[in-house]
């Protein structure tokens, strides 16, 4: 049983609290520290670790505060170098080399985003649950087995984006960047089709774009495709 709580999602800031009842983790710390504290009912000492995918501010805004609170923050060497922060709480982890935090065993894997060394994380716990966390990537190279929970970015839809470009609401140069940095609804659907979803309990769609997404449409299309419970972060 995994409890997922969204403290922030989107380009304004991302932070998620996950717990398997034994070990609590933060996924990203891209919102104000005060909001993280509120989100965990000020029980920062209950948080065993924080996983950071990459160096963009909306994913690690409160990194220093989180480390100052005595929480280890895990990220790639590339992300750590890009942030240029040295701290004994900053833990560099390697691509596809699993590590353990409490009752979670975590496998970092490379994703595709326009930054130094972005990671996604596959988390397995003692109870046999398996959670995939992947954000800010325009596709995922990998397929996964026995997933019970998926937290995946679904940033924009090509049709909404094209509509916005046509209407002048979104600059056309944005399209080039989005194509090679963020997960589109169309590619997320291909990802779901390619994976075995037989054990899947929940899908969380993350990091929806403020202007180039459609929450209701995304939820409906992914539910129709997978037949699973879909939540929008």
């Amino acid at each position, binding site marked *: 049983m995994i409890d997922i709580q969204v403290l922030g999602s989107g*380009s304004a800031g991302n932070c998620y609290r996950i717990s398997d009842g034994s070990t609590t983790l933060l996924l990203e710390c891209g919102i104000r520290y005060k909001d993280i504290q509120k989100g965990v009912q000020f029980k920062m*000492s209950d948080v*065993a670790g924080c996983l950071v995918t990459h*160096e*963009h*501010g*909306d994913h*690690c*805004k409160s*990194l*220093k505060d989180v480390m*100052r609170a*005595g929480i280890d923050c895990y990220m790639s*060497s*590339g992300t750590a170098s890009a*942030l*240029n*922060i*040295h*701290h*004994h709480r900053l833990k560099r982890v390697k691509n*596809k080399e699993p*590590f*353990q*935090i409490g009752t*979670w*065993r975590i*496998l970092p894997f*490379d994703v595709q985003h326009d930054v130094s*060394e972005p990671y996604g994380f*596959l988390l*397995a*716990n*003692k109870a*046999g649950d*398996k959670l995939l966390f992947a954000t800010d990537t*325009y*596709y*995922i*190279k*990998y*397929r996964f*087995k*026995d997933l019970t929970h998926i937290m995946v970015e679904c940033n924009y839809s090509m*049709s909404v984006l*094209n*509509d916005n*470009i*046509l209407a002048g609401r979104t600059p056309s140069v*944005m*399209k080039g960047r*989005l194509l*090679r940095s963020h997960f589109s609804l169309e*590619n997320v659907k*291909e*990802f779901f089709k*390619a994976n075995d979803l037989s054990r899947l309990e929940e899908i969380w769609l993350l990091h929806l*774009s*403020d202007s*180039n997404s459609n929450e209701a449409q995304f939820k409906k299309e992914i539910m129709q495709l997978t037949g699973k419970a879909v939540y929008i972060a």
Partner: protein
Amino acid sequence: MTESTFSTALTKVNDSFFPMIEKQLTGNGIKMDNYSKQCVLTAISSINNVLDSKGITWNDADLDKNNITQILISVASLKLNAAASPREVYFQTRNVSVKKQGTDDVVWKKQIEMGIEGDGNDAILSNFGRDVQSVAQIWLVRSEDAFTYPSFRGLKLEPPTWSPTGKGEVVRVVYPVIKKNNTVEYHISEREDVIKNLVAHINNNMMNETFGIAQNRFKATFDEKKKIAKKKSEVLSKVKAVGLAALDEEEFAKWISPAWKDPQSRESMLIRKMRNNVTKRIPKDFGNAFVEMNYEASVDEGFASARQEITDNANDEIIDVDYEDSTTNSYTDQPETEQYESQEEVKEESQSEKEPVKTTPANDEPPF
């Protein structure tokens, strides 16, 4: 293949594809007019000729029919006529590896590839250009032609002048575009500007290049990635410095497609790029996001290469992790109160909420 079986086969093909295409277009709010229908018919006929020449039948299990449907939808929505002269659109076959859904098995399929000719872009400009009434005969200005650029006297435009000699290579392309208010705009593209297209082409073809620094780009470490990026940047800087002469440089040959390099196709490629550089920058009004998307997919190299990369690499390798009751690789620490190692102490800067974590300006993602 006899005449009667050919027409019967083609009729069957038309009958199977037409309803699908019409349904998709109607579902996206596009009414299929008579000209769109004619475009689909001529496209099916042209594709049939290509398949025939390769000895492939429409019922061939190796033929990717989804891809054909998509092509016919593009042809219909963009109103590209395969029977027009000069050609607006062409078709060719290529072999693609396709992964069987949910398995690691790879099967090879035949795909039809659509390409828009220069005149196809002109047709799109005429049909969908914003406030465009028509596009007059384009000027292919050669190096030995007499040519003067357009100029302005206040608000009054002095048109360009051109005296063709037919000698020399094409150095610029001029598009006289007649607007709906009967004014004429002259859009010009220079040969030397094609270097930007060549740099983009080489950059795309270098996507998987590691220069021997790593086994492949996915296995490259952070430091290796930095070295590879530096090398790529050096190559592209060299290409920019050399200009179109880079087409003859052995050093860059492996990242340049034959269509760019070969003497028999080079000139037409450069002209096509010059023409595209004009037609793409004139605003279009497709009036429908679906048509717009088809246009992007057909002409946008960045879009096409991103799609190709995703098709080639996405959802490919299986990785897994299971919980182990061990402390191997365990990072588990007891949470503790603030405690710094003196030499690693973080400066306690009070950051404003809008400030990025890093001090470099590139650290924040633009909001969208």
